[in-house]
């Protein structure tokens, strides 16, 4: 069992509070991501778990064992760094063997484990090369093999994909997820990329200003962001300011929009609308919320068409529609008048800030 528990963990640098009383329980075998903009405290939290940063207060346990005061070399955690951090003077095999050597594993066993670890990341044939002879993606796979070969209790990943190009990132994302699941390894993944977090994690921890903003499954976070910050960070561009009046949403300017469910918030709030829930048509649609506007920008993506429209009230909204295809209806050109519409259940009320 290697459940990781953070109890009221905080980090202060003088008067600056980087992480505020953070409590978190990461289940055995779970992959959780710490997500947030730079400076939100996600990396500091990870480094406190890894032992590179001392917590100012609070307690960190792994499988019931208190590791709070332990140095990194006594925590048995695998750490993968954004910049790979391979030992430049050692071959790939020596890099991977280093942790086993520190554990005094005998040579024959170590050699076998190194080979297995390299085979697992499909780099067995590079064992005798030096790190600088490998590409970034290969180096990061070596770093992964090196962290995994010691059979750590926990795997910590600090922005492991940020230095890779887009297609490699996609590939590595899948690889990390598969390895993590096949090994059943408790993993904490720090990233600033919501897409990375969503596609790899069991649960996501969205952080802001040293605090947890929202915790939930990728599905929950995407579909039910709690705040305007969460909605924006998870890629919802449309936030309509207003407030709840008698069970419906009153936009600034007075237009009332229908809501389904959740109407508890009082005072000013936002109605969050994902671009794909907004439909566009020439006529208003009966039974849905409708706003009229003008197409300002039309971007053709092949599979989808993205419109940026300005409503008559002056709000800018983004809508994404499936591209009509050849022979289908014409896409709307810039300057065209159109109706934006969405079902009452598609809007999510989020708090301010």
């Amino acid at each position, binding site marked *: 069992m290697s459940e990781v528990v953070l109890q009221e963990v905080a980090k202060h640098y003088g008067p600056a509070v980087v992480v505020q009383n953070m409590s978190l329980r990461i289940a055995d075998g779970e992959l959780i991501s710490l997500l947030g903009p730079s400076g939100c405290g996600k990396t500091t939290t990870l480094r406190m778990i*890894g*032992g*590179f940063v001392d917590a100012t207060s609070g307690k960190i346990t792994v499988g019931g064992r208190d590791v709070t005061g332990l*140095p*990194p*070399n*006594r*925590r*048995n*955690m*695998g*750490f993968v*760094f954004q*910049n790979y*951090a*391979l*030992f*430049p*003077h050692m071959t790939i095999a020596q890099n991977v063997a*280093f*942790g086993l050597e*520190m*554990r005094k594993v005998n040579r024959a066993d170590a050699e076998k484990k190194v080979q297995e670890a390299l085979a697992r990341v499909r780099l067995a044939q590079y064992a005798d090369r030096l790190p600088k002879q490998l590409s970034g993606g290969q180096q990061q796979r070596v*770093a992964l093999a*090196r*962290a995994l070969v*010691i059979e750590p209790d926990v795997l*910590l990943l600090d922005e492991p994909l940020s230095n890779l190009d887009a297609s490699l990132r996609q590939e590595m994302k899948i690889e990390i997820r598969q390895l993590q699941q096949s090994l059943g390894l408790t993993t904490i993944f720090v990233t600033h990329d919501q897409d990375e977090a969503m596609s790899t994690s069991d649960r996501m921890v969205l952080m802001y200003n040293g605090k947890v903003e929202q915790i939930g499954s990728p599905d929950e976070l995407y579909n039910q962001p709690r705040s305007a910050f969460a909605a924006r960070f998870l890629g919802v561009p449309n936030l309509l300011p207003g407030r709840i009046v008698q069970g419906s949403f009153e936009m600034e300017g007075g237009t009332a929009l229908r809501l389904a469910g959740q109407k508890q918030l009082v005072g000013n709030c936002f109605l969050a609308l994902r671009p794909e829930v907004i439909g566009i048509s020439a006529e208003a649609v009966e039974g849905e919320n409708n706003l009229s506007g003008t197409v300002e920008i039309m971007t053709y993506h092949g599979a989808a068409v993205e419109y940026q429209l300005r409503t008559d009230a002056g709000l800018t909204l983004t809508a994404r529609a499936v591209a009509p295809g050849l022979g289908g209806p014409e896409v709307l050109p810039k300057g065209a008048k159109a109706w934006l519409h969405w079902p009452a259940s598609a809007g999510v009320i989020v708090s301010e800030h």
Partner: protein
Amino acid sequence: MSGASANNTRWAYTLFSSLVIGFILLPLVFIVWMSFFSNKILSFPPQGYTLDWYTRAWELSDFRNGFFLSFRTSMIATLVALVLGLPASFALVRGRFAGRDLVNTLLMSPIVVPAIVGGSAIFVFFLEIEFLTGIQVAGSSLGLIMAHSLIALPWMIRLVTTSMISVNPSIEEAASSLGAGPLTIFFRITLPVIKPGVIAGSLFAFVNSFIDLEKSIFLVGPNSTTLQIALINYLEWNFDSTIGAVATVQISLITLLLLITDRYVKLSRAF
């Protein structure tokens, strides 16, 4: 038209580079050449060639002993600079403490202060120590080694910090997470990575200590002169090719050191 001007540029560039290289090498070439002249007094043109000056340089005990004293002093000074300089560089590069820039400047100051000023200051300081404690430092080999360590230290620190700055601190953290303690990390990870810097630093420390004249001149005792002081003393009464022979030996020794070092570590990587 543009081809011709590119040609002219290249020609000018080659000429300029050759002149600079010639300017650097010519004195060395002349010294080596003149060390073989058979003229009794150093002059042009050579009347013949001989190896006598080399035997003479070896037979003069001032040169022979001077060489060994210089060599020993520089070796010890380099070791002292290594022992003090490595941790100092580590602290300067990795540490976050008040007054770090000040300490850095302070450690570089022996290079900045004119050697003759530094030498006289050290001399006066040693005299004060002797006055207060009765222990004679000036003129002793301890005093000489201390002064030479000051010559060696800035070179060591400058070159080691330069190569340490280029080390990715994450590799030390990675080693730590893999189970290595601080000493293991230093000897297995950090030191091998900064090795070119350490070797280049040692080399520069050694050479600069070896060729020092100004600081040593205050600090040597009777009958224990360094090689450079022996040269100056000799030049006071003689003007023959012995000094050329001594200089040639020095040039060869330093060149040899550079070549041997370069075989094992690429010195260019240290900068």
